[in-house]
């Protein structure tokens, strides 16, 4: 009889401990972090967007280079003909070259402004994709918080076990490809 009471008591204590451990495990908030820069730079969407942007940049600046080349040729010709020109012709050609230079500068500024806007739009699209994906990933996998680390120290330390960078990057790239 005494032996039975002891056994029941020990079984009861073990059961209570196990229940408590299981409860503690599942009630702990599920936290993780990603290395934001690594994630964004290795994302296929970012690579594709950067590649397209660079192509666009090259195309637009090719026009500027052509205009600059023509301007330099005009300046060379002016310098070579300088001694043979009358004062009036010199003044006129100088004014035309000045106007041409100003036009090229204005055009270059407008291209740079346009490219800046396009780059911002491109980055905004990519970052929205990354953020939306992480949000849905976190919801699906039951995470309470997913931190994004940055170089200025938003997260000073995190165990590798909580680093989701590779996992999310793989899933995000699969999603981007449409698979």
């Amino acid at each position: 009889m005494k032996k039975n009471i002891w056994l029941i008591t020990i079984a009861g204590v073990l059961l209570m401990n196990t229940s408590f451990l299981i409860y503690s495990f599942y009630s702990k908030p599920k936290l993780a972090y990603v290395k934001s820069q690594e994630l964004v730079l290795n994302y296929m969407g970012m690579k594709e967007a950067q590649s397209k942007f660079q192509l666009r940049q090259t195309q637009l600046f090719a026009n500027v280079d052509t205009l600059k080349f023509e301007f330099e040729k005009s300046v060379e010709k002016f310098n070579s003909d300088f001694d043979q020109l009358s004062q009036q012709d010199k003044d006129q050609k100088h004014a035309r070259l000045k106007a041409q230079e100003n036009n090229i500068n204005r055009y270059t500024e407008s291209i740079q402004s346009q490219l800046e806007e396009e780059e911002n739009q491109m980055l905004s699209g990519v970052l929205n994709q990354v953020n939306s994906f992480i949000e849905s990933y976190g919801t699906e996998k039951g995470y309470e918080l997913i931190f994004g680390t940055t170089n200025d120290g938003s997260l000073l330390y995190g165990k590798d076990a909580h680093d989701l960078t590779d996992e999310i990057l793989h899933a995000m790239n699969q999603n981007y490809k449409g698979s």
Partner: protein
Amino acid sequence: MKYYSLLILVFCIVLTSCSKQEINNFQEFDEYINNIKNGLLKSKNINGYNVSVVYLPKEYLAIKELQTDQNKNYLHAVKEYGEGLNFILRIEPDGINRTQDLILSDVKSYEEYKEKFTLLAFQLREQILIKCGELELVPRIAMMEPVYQLKSGRDFNIVFAPANENERNQIFSTNQIDFQFEDNFFSTGMNHFVFDKQDIQKIPTINLNVNRHELES
């Protein structure tokens, strides 16, 4: 004897359950193509918007046309629609992060509204292309459907048509169609919606009450 009867019964049940699904009315067909498991609907949620692309089979379009014009020949309509590729691009607020009408969202003035509406109505085709192997095609048509304020999202009919026999062969011999949408309006970025040929080919048998005399002629 009982054993063999039972075996035949089980065999019949298995056979009927394994037979190709049939579509018996237009609504079933509509549900089939809009079911994400069937591979004809691809969807993404980005920046509070659901962006999805639905592939429209030629049979679906032919039957839809017959609903409005009973005198049309079904097979002729299927052949016509089969010359190209038809999609619906659907953009709508997800109802959680965004609820406002698509064109009104992030708009601060009537001029911005007018600009956004004009861009969506007339310039969307510049943001879309499909890639079939090495071939890249831009849409012949990219038309916004009117909604008469009945919903907050918008559907766009996108039609691609090959310019020559070579393009046609490339489109219909490819294993995948990559529908690319580079969004400049809602900050969702570049999106790829990849359709597998096997999903397009496994559309179930259509068993609809079309004009029989037209089919048999």
